[in-house]
């Protein structure tokens, strides 16, 4: 299907962000996903988050693999550079892209098939490198584009549309990310935009690898009775563990005191992640606490920012690369020239 272009007419009363852009400027082409697809809600949340952050569209690199989720970068920020790569390989492409130009904002969109099966190795190693990007998994527990096979995130006992029950244990991207040392770990639900938008904003502001697993029901192949990734099941089991607001540097509000356990995490760029609700005894900067919390809430869809740690060196810091993009370094800085070569030749005598 060729992409469908939306009308460009915008209402003059639309609010403009710091760049003078309206939210329409952060839209892409029309979605070709099924009506009611969770992914479209996530797309809407991404659009809002980027607009609110005033990210210059052309400074955004949006990348994806293959699958329904990976189609979605076409549907947001038409003015950004997009890369719809190969199945599971997006983290590798993003790693190289980021290595060449660290000044762009990197947003990867993936699915449970893309991230937890064919590309799980790349995801793991992107986490290890603490690649500076926001990595969104649109998790529906099913292969949509190939019509309904179980994915690696399907729960034991969850039923396929044909009634078959999944027998193998699921891979939980959140637990995976926590054990691999991811520095920003959150889960949300496509049906909860109010929660998702600030999480996405915080993930974008985070320096390092931010993974956001978003339960995103597939209305066509996995929204039936017996599925554990349906709207009904997710709503029923939704457990909001933490609530947080993303506070940009310029609008910081001081003096407001949150309830018990509330805390604020200072982000690298001067913004902050302000928690308004954290369960008693839960420290969002304690990796083991997050793992424990998930264990004690098995069977529930635990959401919110579950772990965040600022200040861990990201890939560029580990590699001691310059502040400017490697891609734009002048050739004179890269080529040692003829006299250096002549001198070097003596070493090979």
């Amino acid at each position, binding site marked *: 299907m*060729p992409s469908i272009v939306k009308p460009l007419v915008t209402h003059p009363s639309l609010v403009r962000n710091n760049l003078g852009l309206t939210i329409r400027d952060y839209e892409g082409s029309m979605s070709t996903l099924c009506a009611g697809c969770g992914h479209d809600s996530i797309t809407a949340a991404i659009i809002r988050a980027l607009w609110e952050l005033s990210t210059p569209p052309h400074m955004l690199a949006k990348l994806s693999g293959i699958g329904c989720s990976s189609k979605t970068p076409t549907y947001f920020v038409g003015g950004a550079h997009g*890369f*719809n790569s190969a199945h599971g390989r997006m983290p590798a492409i993003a790693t190289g892209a980021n290595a060449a130009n660290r000044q762009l904002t990197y947003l990867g969109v993936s699915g449970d098939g893309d991230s937890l099966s064919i590309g799980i190795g790349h995801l793991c190693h992107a986490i290890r490198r603490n690649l500076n990007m926001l990595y969104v998994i649109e998790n529906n527990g099913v292969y949509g584009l190939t019509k309904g096979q179980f994915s690696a995130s399907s729960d034991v006992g969850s039923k396929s549309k044909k009634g078959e029950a999944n027998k193998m244990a699921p891979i939980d991207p959140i637990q995976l990310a926590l054990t691999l040392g991811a520095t920003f770990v959150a889960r949300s639900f496509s049906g909860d935009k109010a929660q998702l938008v600030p999480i996405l904003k915080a993930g974008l502001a985070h320096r390092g690898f931010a993974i956001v697993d978003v339960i995103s029901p597939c209305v066509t192949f996995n929204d039936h009775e017996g599925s554990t990734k349906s709207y009904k099941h997710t709503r029923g089991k939704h457990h909001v563990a933490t609530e947080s607001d993303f506070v940009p540097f310029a609008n910081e509000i001081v003096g407001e005191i949150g309830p018990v356990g509330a805390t604020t995490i200072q982000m690298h760029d001067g913004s902050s992640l302000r928690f308004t609700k954290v369960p008693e005894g839960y420290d969002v900067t304690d990796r083991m606490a997050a793992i424990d919390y998930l264990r004690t809430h098995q069977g529930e869809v635990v959401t919110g920012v579950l772990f965040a740690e600022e200040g861990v060196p990201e890939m560029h810091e580990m590699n001691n690369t310059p502040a400017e*993009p*490697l*891609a734009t370094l002048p*050739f004179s800085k890269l080529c040692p*020239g003829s006299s250096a070569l002549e001198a070097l030749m003596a070493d090979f005598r």
Partner: protein
Amino acid sequence: MPSRINDFAIKLANVNGTGSASANGLIMQAIFRMGVPVSGKNLFPSNIQGLPTWYEIRVNPKGYTARALDYDLIVAMNAQTYKRDVAEVRDGGFLLYDSSWPLDDELIRDDIHYIGIPLARMCNEAFAAPRERILMKNIATAGALIELLNIDAAVVEQLLEEKYGKKKAMRESNKKALKLGADFIKNNFTYPLEFHLKTMHANDDKILIDGNTATALGCVYGGATVAAWYPITPATSVMDGFKEFCEQYRKDPETGVNNFAILQAEDELAAIGMVIGASWNGARAFTSTAGPGVSLMNELLGLAYYAEIPAVVVDVQRVGPSTGMPTRTQQADLLECAYASHGDTKHILLIPANPNECFHFAPKCFDLAERFQTPVFLMSDLDIGMNDWVTPKFTWDDAYTPDRGKVLTADQLEKIKKFNRYLPEEGTSIAARTLPGVHEKGAFFTRGSGHNKFGGYTEIPDEYAEVMDRLLKKHKEAAGWVPAPIIERRLNEQGESAKVGMITIGGCDPAVREALDILADMGRPMDFMRIRAFPFHADVEEFLASHDYCYVVEQNRDGQLCSMLMLETPVAKDKIRPILIYSGFPLSAKHVIDAVTAQLEELNAIYR
């Protein structure tokens, strides 16, 4: 036998992991410094310690440096391979062995000479530490060879000085061991042997370097900033070299930051993905790998081809299929690389024959990859990559500027109405690309799915075919930009070139040239062509057309270069005569002559 100066071959049989490589390298380098044409071939196992390994050294006053296969002296230091090693000594040749233990009767040949040196006993007496006793046996052997072959002792001393300058104890141990070996020869044998060395001046403008180091240096000079790789034999030393040169040349003198990034990937799938991501963002990026790595990279190479993203892949070919023989050499990835990935794909290959070409072809790979917005392979092989070659000193033209291809700047984008990624100017086959972050007008969606010339998704037959046709045209156009083949015609007295040609590639070059000289002496003159790139340069077709038939010498079983010539040029199948030597060791002129002779005999039998 008359004395033979600077014209002989020796083979050193060792156990790997015993320090033999350093002793062998010392001898090789000393001969090089004596100005004598020399080559060293390391025939080693895929193992770290305990298995047989051989090192061959050939010297030749005319500069023939391919393997000789005719050993005047074999240094047998490995009891595991005694039998095979003894059998390989030429009639009247010499075997040097460790006489700390007696030789079995079955190892005694009455047509060769034996030089027994009690190396283990001498080293056990002279050195205390067990490891040192093993290491120094090799150095003591080198000491014996200094006397037997008349290696300049002052040169050896100088080399030790350079190598162990600050490590006094190591230097002294080495000196002591050298003396042990040398003195034993002086006291017990006639020396030097009838074949030995004499100083020449053939290497004044030359260096001794392996191809992988040369490739790494070429990547630094070509301006590569992002390198992604996964460890694999025999390509690992490309990245080792790149790192070392980057540490030397790419540390910003003011800030101390690294003007490079080396990413050790989780696998080759990721390594090529990183290269594509970095190139998409405008960096010069490369990966180094071998055949098994290219197999994994196939998927994304198709993406880079179709989405038109530059990528440079250094393939140091080893013996396949599957794991094959990782430490042995072949040119058996030609087809794999030329047509890598599913669907219709064609790539650009540059095929160097020696470290000098590795160095110069590396920047050329980046130029071509960016000009044609496509993957480019540097097709090295283990023989070129891991053996030390005597090659002319590298030079660099400071006037070189990288060919970045058609990349629109912010100013250019500002002026255009609308950017269409895959729409080239009328009459051209390459469309301008844009880099992320430069200008909002340059934004587009890169995809490996069907797309039309505007960059939009398509499943419309004509739109798909239009882009594919242009990609083919683009690949054909590259034939005019790749290095031309090296052609040397053997003109007769009437000034006519030979009726028969011999075509080869890569590391076969020295063996084929030597064979052609010998064949000419036998009254069988043939013209020479070494192909250096794919798509084939126009001169390749011309050479094929202007000869009655051509032998094609390559190191693989299936005649991959032959296949490509038949597929991609109009040459008739019966004009191509494959000479395929693919058992894994570097080529010798003997292999080529034997094969030609066999084919001629067959022909004579038919046409008698």
